[in-house]
């Protein structure tokens, strides 16, 4: 990227001069101060993080909170259902036990020993309650001496049965469900009746479990729920929808003993998450269980979540798209502005360089001009003296030397004259200038040459061309330079067109077009540089257009050139109608 180092200072300068005419050199890219790619990445990333981040975090928090609340709701609801159901089940059992209690309290021992009376009682019981199948009275020796029911169980001895032991301890006994003789699941309720003179009777009845079964089957439980009763060994006492029929073993573990209703989560043998609520029914071997499918229960919540997450995904994609779009747009704007800035910097640098060169040149030329005039006159005097003297008049060599001095001085003075036009007065005020008049005046200088070389000069001034406020002398100089240039470019018999007109509300354009030799792209790029000439040996020193450039700039205008090699050249000079911003004078 650096300028190559050379020991020859001039080569370095030359390299820089050439460098500036090719604006797309890599050396220029250094001047873009901003790393746009990085800026784009940073901005986009930051904007995405600050917009998407909180959104995602909020959604995550909401997800967890609502999930926890949905779960606790489900647990609470299950617990309530279990409690209510337990109360219903317990009530129906207690009701029947109370009825038996009432019977043993209400009837005397004699009455209970009367089998006809027992039959009456059974009938009354069956009329008031469902589920009672039979009724038997057993004495303290375990012998059933009175039985009413569909089976022939009179005289059976129960003394070695576990429930008979139990009922001696606790007064009321409820048995597990068992198929019994009839192959119908039922349970036994036994109530002890202590006799006044010591000893006891036991009232025993069989109750069909369809009682509990109906109670549980009619329960509407959400989440594909299942309500059933098991005993403490995990044997199903009522049939269930999903966990086996009556008297089968439950596929879940028997929950731990607890006085109150409890709800817990578990997995079934297939790994499906379940919510299990249970309650031990007091004074019975039964445990009420309600089992629900967690997935089914969470479904409404999941559906809402899915919608929300969908919405989130859509929002994030839109945000990302918008952020990328906006960032790209802004960064490209910045890039454009940066380019403009560099171009402006470039322009300023170029203008400053031209101005410095101009001042330097003019200063040098001014100082050189007087001694040059003296040299010229001294040499002229020598020549005069030789011409008038017999001794030297014929000396070709001396005369040659003097002529050479004179012609060199002429060459020098041609250069200083052009250089001096850089040094201009500072105090000239802008005046109203009629373009048409000024162009005619300037062409007056060239009239003879045009005639002599039969060059057609066509002037076209638009009718609406405004009178502009500018520095007339400088405008004349500009026009003279450009027209002069056109004259130099065309062949004898060529054609030069000068057009002027309004361009936009506050500018005029003067276009000078010739059909001369034109120039190459490389020449065109350097045409406004000082000492650049295409006229070769034909007398130009390469300052005319350089001066024109700085003059036009000083008047607040621009000059551009279009050219096609062999086709001709067109100069466009654009000037402000209202005069330049700095009053037409800087120096």
């Amino acid at each position, binding site marked *: 990227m650096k300028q190559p180092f050379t020991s020859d200072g001039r080569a370095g300068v030359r390299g820089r001069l050439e460098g500036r005419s090719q604006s797309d050199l890599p050396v220029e890219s250094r001047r873009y101060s901003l790393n746009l790619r990085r800026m784009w990445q940073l901005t986009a990333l930051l904007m995405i993080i600050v917009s998407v981040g909180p959104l995602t975090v909020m959604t995550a928090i909401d997800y967890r909170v609502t999930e926890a609340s949905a779960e606790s709701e489900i647990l609470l609801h299950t617990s309530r259902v279990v409690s209510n159901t337990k109360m219903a089940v317990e009530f129906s059992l207690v009701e029947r036990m109370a009825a038996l209690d009432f019977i043993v309290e209400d009837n005397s021992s004699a009455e209970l020993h009367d089998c006809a009376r027992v039959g009456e009682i059974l009938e009354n019981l069956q009329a008031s309650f469902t589920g009672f199948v039979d009724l038997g009275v057993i004495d303290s020796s375990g012998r059933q001496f009175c039985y009413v029911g569909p089976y022939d169980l009179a005289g059976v001895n129960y003394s070695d049965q576990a429930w008979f032991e139990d009922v001696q301890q606790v007064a009321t006994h409820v048995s597990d469900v068992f198929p019994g003789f009839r192959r119908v699941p039922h349970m036994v309720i036994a109530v002890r009746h202590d006799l006044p003179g010591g000893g006891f009777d036991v009232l025993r009845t069989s109750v069909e479990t369809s009682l509990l079964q109906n109670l549980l089957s009619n329960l509407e439980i959400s989440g594909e729920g299942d309500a059933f009763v098991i005993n403490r060994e995990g044997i199903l006492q009522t049939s269930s929808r999903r966990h086996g029929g009556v008297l089968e073993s439950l596929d879940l573990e028997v929950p731990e003993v607890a006085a109150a209703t409890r709800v817990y989560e578990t997995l079934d043998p297939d790994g499906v998450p379940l919510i299990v609520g249970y309650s031990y029914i007091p004074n019975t071997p039964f445990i009420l269980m309600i089992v629900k499918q967690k997935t089914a229960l969470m479904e409404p919540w999941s559906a809402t979540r899915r919608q929300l997450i969908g919405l989130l995904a859509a929002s994030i994609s839109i945000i990302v798209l918008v952020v990328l779009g906006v960032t790209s747009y802004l960064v490209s704007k910045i890039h454009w502005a940066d380019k403009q800035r560099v171009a402006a910097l470039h322009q300023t640098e170029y203008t400053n360089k031209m101005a410095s060169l101009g001042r330097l040149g003019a200063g040098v030329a001014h100082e050189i*001009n007087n001694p040059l005039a003296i040299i010229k006159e001294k040499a002229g005097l020598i020549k005069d003296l030789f011409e008038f003297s017999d001794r030297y008049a014929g000396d070709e060599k001396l005369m040659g030397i003097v002529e050479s001095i004179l012609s060199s001085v002429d060459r020098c003075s041609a250069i200083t004259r052009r250089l*001096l036009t850089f040094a201009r007065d500072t105090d000239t005020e802008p005046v109203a200038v009629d373009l048409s008049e000024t162009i005619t005046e300037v062409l007056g200088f060239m009239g003879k040459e045009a005639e002599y070389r039969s060059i057609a000069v066509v002037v076209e001034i638009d009718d609406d061309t405004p009178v502009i406020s500018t520095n007339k*002398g400088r405008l004349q100089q500009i026009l003279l330079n450009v027209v002069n240039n056109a004259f130099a470019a065309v062949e004898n018999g060529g054609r030069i067109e000068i057009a002027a007109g309004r361009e936009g509300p506050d500018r005029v354009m003067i276009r000078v077009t010739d059909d001369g030799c034109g120039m190459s792209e490389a020449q065109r790029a350097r045409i406004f540089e000082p000492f650049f000439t295409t006229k070769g040996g034909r007398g130009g020193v390469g300052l005319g257009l350089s001066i024109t450039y700085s003059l036009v700039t000083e008047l607040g205008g621009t000059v551009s050139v279009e050219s096609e090699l062999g086709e001709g050249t067109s100069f466009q000079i654009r000037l402000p109608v209202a005069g330049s911003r700095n009053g037409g004078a800087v120096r």
Partner: protein
Amino acid sequence: MSEKVLLVDDEEEFTETLAERMRTRGMDVSTTNSGANALQMVDDENFDVVVLDLKMPGIDGLEALKRIKRRRPDIQVVLLTGHATVEKGVEAMKQGALEFLEKPVDLASLTDAIHKAKATKMVLVEKETEERIKEILHHKGW
């Protein structure tokens, strides 16, 4: 009849050399190095042509031109300048300069300008003389 020329420039070497060359071409040349002196000399002597440098310390070329024209309108002035602009030229012409030449000047064109100036002055003088004669004839008509 040789042209009577006054050469005004702040560079003495320049004026002396140029004067010598012009003298060899048959002109009657005087020189001076300041505008003030030039005005004095114009008052004292009758010059045909004054060659003025535009840029001089003190009274500069344009100022001297104005004053000379005010005192002696028939004197022709040729301006020399190391620094020619279209504008300066127009200004000088407006003030009545006959010619505006760039330094270093070509002696041939300077000589031409002087001849032209002399001729212009002769015309003016003749015209003046004619008018005076007419006037005399008119007033003292016999």
